[in-house]
Structure formats: structure tokens, C-alpha cells
């Protein structure tokens, strides 16, 4: 033979533990989907790396763009809202940037999951992959972007004189809860998007409306006090509040807000996971 087959003897290792697939042995799709996702964790890393690399490979500013984009948006917002609408929001620049960063994290995860699942449709028809890997890689990609956006956020905080307080250390908690909520929504949408081509498009319109209904770029006080209770129905409102609190107030948000966020995160993820994995093996021939 002109080229040797690689010497590493996987066959030997496999004979001890040869994988056996039995379609009759699938009792708990939610659990087995989770197990398979863990098995394919290296692929997950590769997909995230691919998303990040390919996004910036052919642009001049490269990864800087991730940081510049929300920063420029924040500058525009600050100019418009502080000078035109004259909001009385202390530290408006940091307030808006924090809101936009977390909102983008959510929006990118949910839309990315759908487009990645559609990209993977061709592959899923040929080889087995845990279907949730596409939602997970969208989440991972947006998480990297969020962490990169924290850099300009901290810069803006330093410039505008927002003090850095020890409460910043609890920042991973709101990020984790938002990630769980976003993954749950992403899974529900992915399953629906596999059946209907226009879901992504419709969702984007919905997303824009949702964004303006959430106090991200405006303080919630501009809404009349009689209507402010309506924000309580919006899970993203709570999640953004608990994300901003350690940054701007220097303490945790109120217990009700924390509880509402946690409930939204756990319930959405649990339902999304169950809903998605129940039909995961049908997605291959739907896409």
C-alpha cells in the first residue's frame, strides 16, 4: 500500500468497548440528548471556534469589531437620549451598553441556533450528531461575543466614573441565567423553524418589537407608573435588571427580580430541552 493506515489502534480500544446502538433502548430522549451532547463536546468547541474565526477572517478590524459595534451604538444612543430626550438616567452610557450587550447575547443565541440548525441539515441527514449541538454552539458563540463586549463596557464605566465594586464578582450568575433562558428559547424555536421556513424571518420582527418593549435603551421610568407592572411579565426585563444591578448599583437586584429571573431560566430551559429532544430525531428529514 502506498500510504499506511494510521497506526493508532482504535480498533483494539473499540473491541473492548464497541459502541452498540439499539433503537429499542431509547427511553428518555431528553437524557440521552444530554449525554450525546457531552460526548460531542469537542465538536461543540470546534463549531464555536469556526463561528468566531469565520466571522472575522475576512474583515479588516477582525475581532475588534465585536467590541466596536456596541460601543458605536452606545455613543449614538447616549447622544440621542441624553441630548434629545433628556433622560434623567444616571450613567446612561453604561446603562444602555449593559442592556444592549445582554440583549444581543440573547438575540444572537436564539437566531443563531435556527440558522445553524438549517446549515447542519445536510449533515444531519448523513451522520448522527446530537441535534442540540447547533443551539449549544450558537450559545457558545454569543457567549464569547458577550465576554468581549464586557471590555468596552468596563472602559465606558471607567471613563464615565461608575465605580467598580465587589458586586461585579456575581456577574456570572445573571449571565448564566440569561444563557439558560436563551438556550431554552433557542431550542423551542429550532424545532419550529425546522418545520416552517418563515419562522426565522417572523422571529426577527418579533425580536425587534420585543427589544423596544424592554427597557434597554430607555429607563423604565419613562413609562407611566400605572403601566410599569407590565414589565414584570417580560423575562428579559428581569434578566437585564439582575445583570445591570451589580454593574451600576453595586449590589444584587431585589429578591423578586432574582427569583423571577431564575424561574424564567429554569422553566424555559427545562421545557425547551424536553420539547426539542422529544422530536430531535425527526429534525433530520424536516430540514
Amino acid at each position: 500500500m502506498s500510504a499506511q493506515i494510521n497506526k493508532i489502534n482504535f480498533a483494539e480500544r473499540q473491541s473492548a468497548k464497541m459502541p452498540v446502538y439499539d433503537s429499542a433502548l431509547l427511553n428518555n430522549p431528553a437524557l440521552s440528548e444530554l449525554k450525546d451532547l457531552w460526548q460531542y463536546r469537542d465538536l461543540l468547541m470546534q463549531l464555536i471556534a469556526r463561528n468566531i474565526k469565520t466571522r472575522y477572517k475576512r474583515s479588516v478590524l477582525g475581532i475588534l469589531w465585536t467590541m466596536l459595534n456596541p460601543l458605536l451604538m452606545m455613543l449614538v444612543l447616549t447622544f440621542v437620549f441624553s441630548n434629545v430626550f433628556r433622560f434623567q438616567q444616571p450613567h446612561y452610557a453604561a446603562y444602555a451598553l449593559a442592556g444592549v450587550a445582554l440583549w444581543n447575547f440573547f438575540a444572537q443565541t436564539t437566531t443563531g441556533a435556527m440558522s445553524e440548525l438549517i446549515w447542519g441539515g445536510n449533515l444531519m441527514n448523513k451522520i448522527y450528531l446530537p441535534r442540540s449541538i447547533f443551539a449549544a454552539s450558537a450559545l457558545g458563540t454569543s457567549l464569547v461575543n458577550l465576554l468581549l463586549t464586557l471590555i468596552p463596557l468596563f472602559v465606558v464605566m471607567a471613563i464615565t466614573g461608575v465605580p467598580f465594586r465587589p458586586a461585579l464578582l456575581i456577574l456570572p450568575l445573571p449571565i448564566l441565567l440569561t444563557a439558560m433562558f436563551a438556550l431554552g428559547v433557542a431550542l423551542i424555536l429550532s424545532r419550529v423553524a425546522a418545520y416552517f421556513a418563515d419562522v426565522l424571518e417572523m422571529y426577527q420582527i418579533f425580536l425587534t418589537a420585543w427589544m423596544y418593549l424592554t427597557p434597554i435603551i430607555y429607563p423604565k421610568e419613562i413609562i407611566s407608573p400605572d403601566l410599569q407592572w407590565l414589565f414584570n411579565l417580560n423575562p428579559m426585563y428581569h434578566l437585564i435588571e439582575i445583570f445591570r444591578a451589580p454593574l451600576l448599583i453595586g449590589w444584587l437586584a431585589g429578591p423578586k427580580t432574582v427569583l423571577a429571573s431564575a424561574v424564567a431560566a429554569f422553566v424555559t430551559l427545562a421545557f425547551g430541552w424536553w420539547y426539542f429532544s422529544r422530536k430531535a430525531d425527526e429534525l433530520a428529514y424536516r430540514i
Partner: protein
Amino acid sequence: MSLLTESDNPKPIDRLTETAASDNEMVIRLENVSVVYQAPRERIKTFKEYVIRKVKRQVEHQQFNALSDVSLELRRGEVFGLIGHNGAGKSTLLKLVSRVMRPTRGRVWVKGRIAPLLELGAGFHPELSGRENIFLNGTLLGYSRAEVEKLFDGIVEFSEIGDFIDAPLRTYSTGMTGRLGFAVATATRPDILIVDEVLSVGDEQFQEKCAERITEFRRQGTTILLVTHSSELVQRICDRAAWLDHGKFCGIGQPAEIIHLYHERYHLTSLVTVSEIVESEPIEPKPVEAEPVVAKVIVTEDFLAEETETLSEIIAVSREVLALEQQALEKEWFYPYALPSGKNVQCYLPPEIATIHANRWAMVKTVLRQTFGQNWSQLDCLDIGCNQGFFSVKLAEQDCRSVVGLDARQQNIDDAELIRQIYELNNVSFRLGDISKIEPTSLPQFDVTLMLSVLFWQENPIGVLRAAKALTKNLLIIETPVAPEIFGEMDWGSREVHKPLQGSFALLDLTEESKRPLGSMTDLSFCPGRESLIWLLQKLGFSSVELVLPAPDAYEQLTSGSRMMVVARV
């Protein structure tokens, strides 16, 4: 040259002794497996539409069996070939084995690591370098990162990429991409190798290298599951073969035996020869599995008794009709019309060929009966290329509300009109028109459109099908001779790499035929093949396409498959 053949390699593979040497361990077992697709009767593409229909309660689901009650056992080291038409269930079976799909009923059991040979470029990203793509593709195939690292040098060496390894994949040639894909997929010996087509990768030297690697895998006990259209290949390299048709095995056994059965059913000898000629050409055939296309087959019922009964009812014939009959008896006809007075017109087709008209009518009647029941009084029908009006008259006799016969020749229209007067039918009219030139909006839509023996005369068959689609509210029934098919793919340039062929068309010279009263209006024809026609009808938006099988004693061309009838439903 195809990858699995060893035509340049004189040593024959002795399949019996070689597999006997390995133990007889079972690696794949399918137990009474069925796969039922549930699909909305009409394809609902958007969520908006779905919601609207759901509210109106218009979502009807229909099921079709991609596989029904299939059982199969494969042992270690076997090379197993799967043959059958597109839509027979071959890719569904592969999907079950590779865990992509779960059976609706029954059990699938697979032991060992499965490697699919993916189509060119699947799972690669053009912007990433070769190195990055190896890791991406390797982990896609289920390796861990550490495993890919260990395999990395071997992959690079085998794929002969060399210094290009750090260049983005979009700069690679088709051959390089193919080599890289093959090298990653076969970096370790899989227990089961799935080959869903005759692969062609790179130049001949590299193909030989690939063939060697596969042969080596086989020697070490890899089971190979091969799906192909080339029965010659199956016969040459497979230990066993199976023929899948409409979701069922028509036979499992010795390759030669199975292929014989397959050919006998479809009279495919000529077709096979054509695809093999192409195989040696630079364009390699690469059969592409479409989603199951023909979901249902309609078997023609026997109406003979019923038909003769109506003919035996000889009624009193008026003087006017007798005069018209006289005109009819003075000329030769394409159709064997039986006149009300009991006489038959002179038919210039020999009786054994003229039976085709009765066969086709039985087929059309079966379809309409199964769709609309016995009462057709609400149906508006169009008969495209009605010729002397045989089928228009038949439909009118069955009390359809209205029938329009369309033909491009005035002589045919006049003949048909004569028959209409003789039969005293008021629900049928004939008009002059060429389907390839007609403006579809100039006519209303019809419940049923017939297009019998029309398509193979057309130089623009796709345009004609579009026009026919536009004119059809419900059913389009097409009957035509079909061209032999070539499967494979076409080199499509660096970006898209390859385009699969969705079937093929035959280009025919009809200079002679175009001068005759019957036949083409143009001196060229572009005749579709069986698969291309079915695919095309679906592409044009028909929700289902069904094959109408003739009665077993029907005209030879219909039973052999060189002519076929399909029903396309809007």
C-alpha cells in the same frame, strides 16, 4: 474508474474465502422495521399558512411508508449492495443504520463505529484552513480532539495536501477537497462503512489508493454497505445484495440473482449499459438519492366486462348520424372507434398495438375512479393533444360536466368533431391549440388534465409541463414514453463544486415525424426520463406524484416501463 472497482488491479477479490475467514458476528440487524413519514397532504411551507389552515381545519395529513416491515441481518466483513429506484427506500435504510433516523416500528441494532463517505465538501467550511477543517470534520465524525491530533499527520499525508494545509479551503481544487474528505472519513478503520454512491475522488492514482484502503478495511473485517445504481458494480464486489422497491425487499441473496430479478422487472438492460458507458467517461456517475418520490402506486383495475357491456347497447341510429358514420367509414383512423350502428372504423394501427388505447383508458379510469368515485358529473376535463378525440369522447361518455379536447392540427380537430356528432355528445368540444405555445390564462382551469402521448414530442417539455400545471386544478395525468436515465453529477465549478443530476433528457431528431399528421409539431424533441419527469413534476409544485401501473396483460411498452403513466396532484 470508480473507487470500489479494481479494474486496474489484476488480483480478484475472492469474496467467499475472505469473508469466511472472519468470524460470523452480527453487526447490523433490522427487525421488522417500518418507517412512516407523516406529511401534510399539501406541502405547507410557512408557519403563517399553517396557522391559517389549522384555524380553517384544512391540515390533512397523509402517511406513506418509506419502509414497510423490513428485516435484514449483516455480518462482520460482508460487502452488501442495495439496489432499487430513487424513492425505493434505500436512503431511508441507510439513515436508520447510521442512526440519523429512528424507525416508526421495529428495531434497529448496530454494533460498532459507522463511517459514512460523505458527499464532497460536506461538513467543510470554505473560509477555514485545511488544518482547521480536519479538526472540524474529524469531530463531526465523532472523534475527540485528542484523537484527531493523533490522526492528523496520517490524514495530511494520505490526502497529499502538503503545504496547502494552512491555506483556506476555498483555494483548494475539487480533487483536493475530495481527498481531504476521504482521508478524514477513513482515518481509522470503521466497523461499518457506508458508501451511498460510486465515489470518485481525484485522479486515477488517488482512486487506486482509496480502493486499496477500502480493500484493506474489508480484509480486517469492516462491513461495507453500498448503495448504487450500477448493477455491474454490485455484481463485481458484493457478497450479497438486496433489491428494495417501494419500501420492501423484493429479494435478498446472491448479487447475480438479485440483479437478474431486478432487470427482469424493469427491462433495464439498455439503461444499465448507458450508465456504464458514462462511468468510464470523465464525468463520473454519482447516483443521488432524492427523498422518496413515488409515494404511491395505482394498480389498474380491469374494466373490460363493463366496457363491452356499453358497446353492446346498440341503439337506433338516426339518418343524420348514419350519414356522418358514412364519412367516418370512408377514412382511416388512429383509434378503433366503434360506431353506434355497430360498425367499426378502419384503424390503421394493427390490433395488437391498438390495444394500447384501451389499456391507457383503463389506467385513466382507475385513477379517476379512485380519486372521484363513480360520479364524474362535477368534473371539467382537458385533453391536451387530443388527436382524434378518443379520450375526450370517453370522458364525455362517462358524463363529465365538460370536456375540452385541444390539438394543434385542424385535421384532428375536424375528425374529433365528426366523432362527437356521431356520438351525439354535447358535453365535449374541440379546439385548435398548441400546448407549447398556448397562453395558459386563455383557458379556465380544469379538474382533470390528460396529457397522453404528448410530452415526448415536445422540444420544450418543461414549458409544456408548466403550462399544463397552470391549467390544472386537481389532477394531471401524463402518459409518455420515457428516455433512459443517466445518474450522476456535473462539475459545477469551484464554488458549488458539484451539482447532482435530477434525471436526464434524451434529445431526438423528429424531422420525419414532424411531417406526419400525427406526432410532433417541431423537428426536435427533448424527452424526459422516468426519474426526471417525476422529479420535475414535484419541482413544479405538484404535491404528490403517483405511478400508474398497467394491467399485467397490457401493451408491452407500458408493462416494460419504456412508457409510463403518472398522476400528479396539485
